[in-house]
């Protein structure tokens, strides 16, 4: 705003005006005592739409789904005390997956802070270990600048959630001050590195061009950096095989011929074997998570490693690398591609041909096979049919467990931001509220939530939010009456002692959906799967809750158990693929 039209606003109004100035469309929240002044400011305007959830965890996941599907920050508004503590799970979820969120928490009146007042918790203290940064605003004069800082920090560098704790008294409508939203910021202690070091880039290119068995391993950082195009160009320029992490799926099209699918604990045989055997690994926007690496001592034993990441602390945290490049993935990929063209050497096509032949051998084992003649519905089949019915074009959110892995394995994602799941924290209850956030951001898009009967019950109350805002998401529930992944581990590692993983008393999900004002369907025969999905997705204006009664004993394969390397996967029994080329390599 210019000097001549300065307006006087209360603290509560400043909070909302700052959101407008940041271009925020939606605030996901739940009112309470400490934020009533802010809610009054919301009431008096219509630029920022408030989405009333049914539990603060739902608010954070919905804002998170909005953020993941758009690349814009998600905004949450909750009250002090339990409002803030309920939001913590969602904040931690966003933190581990580096998702930009602004979480505004009400705080008790300044004079009461520290007195164990009603609905008082130390929100800054509680959230500290699971945010990128947080603030307690002490004066009404500081609100605008703090909001600016919060958005800046949340969305730049390695993104993440920022909590802004606002005591009630500084939002008092009786105290109005001049409002000016800062245009620029200089935070001397915060300057993320964007450009990669040129010398390191040159070194990386030398390694890449000398590779005989190269492998690209890319992660969620590519999506966060909007570098999907650059990654695709880089990969195709080289003709190297590429595998993607759970968080990175879609950055490189799954249907692309260089794609080996996902790697890691439930990655494909070909991706994991290629990781084990490669001589040069190019890690891009990925953080060598334990679910990806397996046993660190057995990780990529033959490889020189190049690691591109915007967060210096990601580099050499779990795995020592040969060429670290700190910078924004998008910038670094452009530089790498440029440098590759300038270099007089070219990739060793003969060696590559031999490497691809080896990979094709691994692929031929068809590690993702399952029994297609089963009389019971196989969860994999449902996901495959979902892919067909939605033309591979839907936004897919998921909860956490077997269904999440089946979704990642059997719904090939060709676009970034299409696959929305809690990869780092592994938060059950994420899928449904996240789907609501995605649908709000993409009103005409098809949004499906793949879930299980255990996960969905952790945030089932958001069915009510979906009705209030007419959000026609489709819930694909793979109902095996077990916490499937827990059951699988108990079968493998606890001699089938299914301790507390069986859900004895389940609701009638069809009636439950109906009582919330939605459509419910139950499907228990494989022959009905496609028809039911087609019928459900034809109901464009309705939330349809589909309860698929699936095979209780199905497991997720391949699987790398604790302490094992990439070449030591559990596979479906009938799957006998080619072995590692280890002997030749030695």
């Amino acid at each position, binding site marked *: 705003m210019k000097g001549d039209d300065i307006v006087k606003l209360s603290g509560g109004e400043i909070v909302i005006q700052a959101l407008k100035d940041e271009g925020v469309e939606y605030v996901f929240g739940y009112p309470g005592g400490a934020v009533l002044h802010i809610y009054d400011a919301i009431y008096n305007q219509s630029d920022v739409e408030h989405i009333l959830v049914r539990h603060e965890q739902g608010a954070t996941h919905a804002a998170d789904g909005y953020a993941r599907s758009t690349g814009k920050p998600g905004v949450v508004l909750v009250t002090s005390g339990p409002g803030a503590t309920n939001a913590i799970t969602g904040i931690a979820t966003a933190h581990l997956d580096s998702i930009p969120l602004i979480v505004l928490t009400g705080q008790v009146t300044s004079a009461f802070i520290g007195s164990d007042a009603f609905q008082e918790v130390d929100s800054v*203290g509680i959230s500290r270990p699971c945010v990128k940064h947080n603030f307690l605003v002490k004066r009404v004069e500081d609100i605008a600048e703090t909001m600016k800082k919060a958005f800046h920090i949340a969305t730049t560098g390695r993104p993440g959630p920022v909590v802004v704790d606002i005591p009630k008294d500084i939002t008092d409508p009786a105290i109005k001050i001049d409002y000016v939203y800062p245009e620029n910021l200089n935070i001397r*202690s915060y300057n993320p590195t964007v450009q990669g070091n040129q010398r390191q880039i040159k070194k990386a290119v030398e390694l890449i061009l000398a590779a005989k068995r190269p492998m690209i391993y890319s992660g969620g950082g590519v999506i966060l950096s909007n570098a999907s195009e650059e990654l695709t160009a880089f990969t195709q320029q080289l003709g190297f095989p590429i595998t993607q992490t759970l968080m990175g799926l879609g950055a490189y099209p799954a249907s692309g011929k260089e794609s080996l699918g996902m790697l890691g604990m439930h990655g494909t045989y070909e991706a994991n074997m290629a990781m084990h055997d490669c001589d040069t690994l190019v890690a891009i926007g990925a953080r060598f998570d334990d679910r990806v690496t397996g046993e660190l001592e057995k990780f990529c034993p033959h490889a020189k490693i190049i690691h591109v990441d915007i967060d210096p602390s990601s580099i050499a945290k779990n795995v020592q690398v040969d060429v670290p490049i700190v910078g924004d993935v998008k910038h670094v990929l452009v530089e790498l591609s440029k440098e590759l063209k300038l270099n007089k050497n070219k990739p060793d096509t003969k060696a590559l041909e031999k490497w691809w032949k080896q990979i094709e051998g691994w692929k031929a084992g068809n590690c993702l096979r399952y029994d297609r003649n089963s009389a019971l519905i196989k969860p994999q089949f449902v996901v495959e049919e979902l892919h067909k019915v939605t033309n591979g074009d839907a936004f897919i959110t998921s909860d956490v467990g077997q269904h999440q892995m089946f979704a990642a394995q059997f719904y090939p994602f060709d676009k970034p931001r299409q696959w929305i799941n809690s990869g780092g924290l592994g938060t059950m209850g994420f899928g449904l509220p996240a789907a609501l956030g995605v649908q709000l951001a993409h009103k005409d898009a098809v949004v499906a939530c793949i879930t299980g009967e255990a996960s969905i019950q952790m945030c089932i109350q958001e069915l009510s939010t979906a009705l209030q805002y007419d959000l026609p998401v489709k819930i694909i529930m793979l109902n095996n009456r077990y916490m499937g992944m827990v059951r699988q581990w108990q079968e493998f590692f606890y001699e089938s002692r299914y301790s507390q993983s069986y859900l004895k008393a389940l609701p009638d999900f069809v009636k439950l959906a109906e009582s919330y004002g939605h459509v419910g369907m139950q499907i228990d025969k494989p022959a009905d799967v496609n028809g039911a999905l087609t019928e459900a997705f034809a109901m464009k204006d309705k939330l349809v809750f589909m309860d698929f009664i699936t095979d209780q004993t199905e497991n997720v394969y391949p699987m790398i158990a604790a302490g094992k390397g990439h070449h030591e996967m559990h596979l479906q029994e009938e799957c006998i693929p080619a072995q590692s080329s280890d002997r030749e390599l030695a």
Partner: protein
Amino acid sequence: MRHIISILIENEAGALSRVAGLFSARGYNIESLTVAVTEDASLSRMTIVTSGSESIIEQINKQLNKLVDVVKVADITEGAHIERELMMVKVDAKEAASRDELQRLADIFKGRIVDVSDNIFTVELTGEGEKLDSFLKALNDVSIIETVRSGATGIARGKKALQV
């Protein structure tokens, strides 16, 4: 290996808990931690003595730099540096002999007796940790009532400086 990490951090409420919380959450050691404001009132300087393998120290450096409030981090043990710690020891010296002994030890260690009341003496001593340990050892016959140590602080020798 023992390292002395110096940190310049915004002098704001909660800054200390961000650093302390980082160390406890990631399982890093803190042998000692000192903090005080600098000549620039907007900055605090923190000195942390820690230990760990090279890769852990590298992570500590990176993780500290990642904290939004941290302006600068340096491992001063990487180069020539001066390290100092302040200690005050309160002793009971009823016997004339032990009073003499105390005075003599304080002189040898370049300490000072800073308070005397009844038979209670307080000695102030500055130096590297090892020197303070030796002094305590040398006091063997004098009965110690109370000891307080500041934890180490340090500064690089020569031109090298931690500044904005």
